[in-house]
Structures are given as structure tokens and as C-alpha cells.
């Protein structure tokens, strides 16, 4: 347990030591700010049934920030260890492969979650300055953040997998970007393709991140999400673990 903690501490410190973290945070804040501004502007224009939270979490800026952040966060994780050769010192210390995979995953997840913290302030400031609540109910604020955690787990794990595949960070980022965006656009099949077969609809409903967010930001919690994403995350991490071990043993 202490080893895992040591590894996690190291992985987290890399995030906050590197300038990349601050660049990511900077652009992330800009996109979030735009998204928030967009929400207010929209609600100012005409009366709407939507709350600020709802519009914020369903804007294009939100989705761009959300989708682009995973490759940037995760590309380094394994690829850099292979590139620098530090994998050799790391794995000849008494640590388990699984501990390394878990610590890298957790560090990336924690960093990802910390990126969302400033957005909580927006809603606080809104209610303070606007003298009205940004949400209809407490659940309406809790639910989208819960969904961000659940979907984030899945996408971070996907990024871990991509990073474990290669020694080149750019290649890792590309693989992860294609996978993340590819899965995201699966949702849109139903909107684009006219033939809406019930089977296709059922399948895409599991990965329909747009639809999930639509209902969660209304405060409607869909339990399928809590089974599907964590189990997929687990599966992806197991595959990452296998690839990680395989590449090390083959070098």
C-alpha cells in the first residue's frame, strides 16, 4: 500500500512539475469560461427552461475541452518510461506491474478531476452575483460531476492503454484521440443514419456520452452508466497491464 502511495505521489508530482499541466489548465479554463459565458448569454437572450448548469454541460466548448484533455493527460504515462528507459529502474525495484498501472491511472484521473474544480466556482459566483441559483436542485449539480468522474475513468483508462502501446508520446496521443473521439461519435450514428434499428440504438445508448450528459445535467441519474463505464475501465486497465508486461518482457 505504501509502495502504491509512493508511486502515486511521484506520478502526481510529474503532472504539477511539468509546464504541460499549466498549459492544459490554461486552455481548459478558457474553454470552460467560454462555455459558461455561452450559457449565460443564451439564457439572457430569451426565457428558457434550462438552468445554467444544463447549458454549460451541453455546450460545444464543454465537449471540445472534455474530449481533447484525455490524450494530453495520458500520452506521457507509459510512453515516456519506455522512451527514457526508466522502465528498467522502475521495474527492477520491488514493485508490482499492477501497482504501476494503477498508480498511473489514478494520478491521471486525479489530475483530470482537479481540472474541473474551477468550474464549481463559476456556479458559486453566479448564485452570489446573480442572486439566484444556477441549478434547479442539488442533484442537478452533483449528477453532472458524478458523470464526469465515471466517464473520465473510462477515457483515462483508454488513454493509459494508448500510452502503453508505444514509446512515442505523439503516437500515444493520436491513438487515444482517435479512440476517444471515435467512441464519442458513435452516439451520433443514431442522429445521422436514418435507419434507426432498435439494436443499434440499444448498443450506442451505452456509450452515448452526449445523451448521458443531457440527462445527468437535468439531474436524472441513469444507473446503466455506473455498471458499464467502471467495468469497461477495469477491462481496459487489465489490457493495459497485459500490454505493459508484454512490452517489457520483449524489449
Amino acid at each position, binding site marked *: 500500500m505504501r*509502495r502504491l502511495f*509512493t508511486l502515486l505521489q511521484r506520478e502526481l508530482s*510529474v503532472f504539477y512539475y511539468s509546464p504541460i499541466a499549466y498549459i492544459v489548465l490554461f486552455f481548459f479554463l478558457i474553454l470552460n469560461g467560454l462555455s459558461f459565458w455561452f450559457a449565460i448569454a443564451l439564457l439572457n437572450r430569451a426565457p428558457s427552461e434550462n438552468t445554467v448548469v444544463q447549458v454549460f454541460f451541453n455546450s460545444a466548448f464543454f465537449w471540445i475541452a472534455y474530449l481533447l484533455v484525455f490524450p494530453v493527460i495520458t500520452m506521457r504515462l507509459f510512453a515516456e518510461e519506455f522512451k*527514457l528507459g526508466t522502465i528498467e*529502474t522502475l521495474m*527492477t525495484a*520491488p*514493485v508490482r506491474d499492477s501497482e504501476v498501472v494503477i498508480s498511473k491511472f489514478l494520478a491521471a484521473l486525479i489530475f483530470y478531476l482537479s481540472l474541473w474544480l474551477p468550474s464549481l466556482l463559476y456556479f458559486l459566483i453566479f448564485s452570489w452575483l446573480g442572486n439566484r441559483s444556477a441549478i434547479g436542485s442539488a442533484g442537478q449539480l452533483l449528477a453532472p460531476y458524478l458523470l464526469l468522474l465515471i466517464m473520465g475513468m473510462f477515457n483515462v483508462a483508454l488513454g493509459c492503454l494508448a500510452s502503453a502501446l508505444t514509446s512515442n508520446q505523439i503516437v500515444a496521443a493520436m491513438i487515444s484521440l482517435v479512440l476517444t473521439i471515435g467512441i464519442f461519435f458513435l452516439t451520433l450514428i443514431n442522429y445521422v443514419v436514418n435507419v434507426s434499428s432498435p439494436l443499434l440504438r440499444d448498443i450506442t445508448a451505452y456509450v452515448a456520452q452526449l445523451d448521458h450528459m443531457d440527462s445527468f445535467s437535468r439531474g436524472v441519474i441513469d444507473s446503466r452508466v455506473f455498471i458499464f463505464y467502471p467495468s469497461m475501465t477495469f477491462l481496459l486497465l487489465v489490457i493495459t497491464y497485459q500490454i505493459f508486461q508484454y512490452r517489457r518482457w520483449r524489449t
Partner: protein
Amino acid sequence: MIKVEQLTKKYSGVTAISNLSFEVGKGEIVGFLGPNGAGKSTTMRILSSFMPATSGRALIAGHDVFRDSLKARMHLGYLPESVPLYGDMRVSEYLRYRGSLKGLGGKKLRNRVNVVKELCSVKEVENKLIATLSKGYRQRVGLADALVHDPDLLILDEPTIGLDPNQIRQVRELIKSLGERHTILLSTHILSEVEVTCSRVIIIHRGKIEASDTPGNLVGQLRTSGTVRLEVKTDGDDPIQLIEKIAGVKGVIATVEDGWQRCSIRIEAKSDLREDIFRLAVERRWTVRELTQERATLEDVFVELTHTDD
């Protein structure tokens, strides 16, 4: 401390090492020699549990490096050939991190980090970023990392590569002093280093062990004929004719330089004719400036065992 039994490693068809078996006892300093690509690093990587062998097994302090890998790794300090380090960490921070990964904590961790910083003389750079360190310091930080948990066994893959002569001497002294408390397996291409530091040498070539003995015995076994060097002023005598009359001399080559005859005398193996030559010189009233027997070195042994024409 190390027990290797019929270890074989194949990389996609290429056999890196085949049926390697050797043992290293507690307290030994063993030099692991061989030409590039002979399988030294492969063997060391298997011993350090970095990768598994295709067949055979290896034990470290009684623990199988594959099945009981974590316990085996606890007993081991390993310095890889390329000395990979995290450039974004400071030296002290890195050593604390590594120590804590290897199971140290609290006061013990602080103590050990300080001890290895002293030992490897990296104290003066303890607050520098590793990325800014010179090759020599990086090497010593790597060594400090290998030592931080006070392991019984050290495996060092070319610990002096890329260092300047002064640094090589320092590292050599360090290794020698470590040998009093630790078992060491080290690979290197600097054979003079092995001759002074190692109690035993294992030479591998093309994945097989060619020799395993003390440096002295290896040199002694080498069957090349010896050479005696003689520099004399002979006052008109022809040294070649006279020396060739001594029993055991196989041939003499002489060159003249500033009135001094410089002779290179080939003699039969394992004989020492210096006394006879000296007596001859006294008899003929020659002035002797040099009389030495050239000895075979470990380098000769290495070349003889691993030389290939291809």
C-alpha cells in the same frame, strides 16, 4: 548469492544466451566480461527480474527471480547500462523516492539517503535537477540509487562507461570498498579495472561461458609464449648471437637506438630466463638499463577467448 541454472533467452529466433550456468558466492566481486552482444546485459536483465528467461532459472538470495520476483528484487541493487533517471527530479528527491519504493521509510530512509549521498559523493549536487547533471554525476546518482536500500547484491552493468579517468578511478575505489559488505556482479570493457577489483571473472561469448576463474589463474593458463625485454649497451658484442645460445630462447629481435640495443626476446611459455640473461650480461660486462618479462594480461585472455575472424 546468485545461482543461475541453464538459463536460455531467445529473442524472436535469435538466441542471446544459451544454457548459462554459474554461481556467485556471498562476498565475491565477479567481473562479467564479453564482447558487445555476448549476452551480458541480457543475463543481468534476467537476474534483475526485468524480463523473464525463455528457459532455465535464476535465484537471488534463494528467491526465484521470476516466481518470487519481489523478494528477489528486495535483495538486489541494479544499475542498468544506460543509467535511466528522471530528469525532472532533484537528486535528494529522487533518492528518497527510490528508497521509499524499495521499502524504506521514516528515519531509516533519511539515514540511508544521507549515507549513499556521502558514499557516492553526490552531496554537492543534492539539490540539482537530474537533467542538468553531467554524465559522471548521473552515473553516481544511479549507483546511489542501487545502494539506497543496502542490498546484499549489486548488479552493475558497465558502471564506468562514459566516465573520465579520474571518475573511473573513483568508481573503482568505491566498488572495491563496497565489496567488503556486498556481493557484486559487474560487467565492463575495461579489463585493467577487472584485474584490480574482481576476485573472479566470468567471460561469456555468443551466449556461452568461455571461462570462469580468478584473473590470475586465467592469465596463467594462457598459452602464448612470453617475451622478455632487454635494453643493454654491449660495446661491440652482437647480443642476438649470444642470447640465442641460452637454452629456452626462441628468437631475438634487436634494434639500436642511441647506442642502446633494444632486444625483444621470445622465450618458451611459463619459463623465466631473466636470471640467465642477467648472468650473461654480467659476464660480458654489458650495461643493463631494462630487463623485464612481459606478462600476459587479462586483455590477452579476453582476445584469445572471444576473438573471431568474422
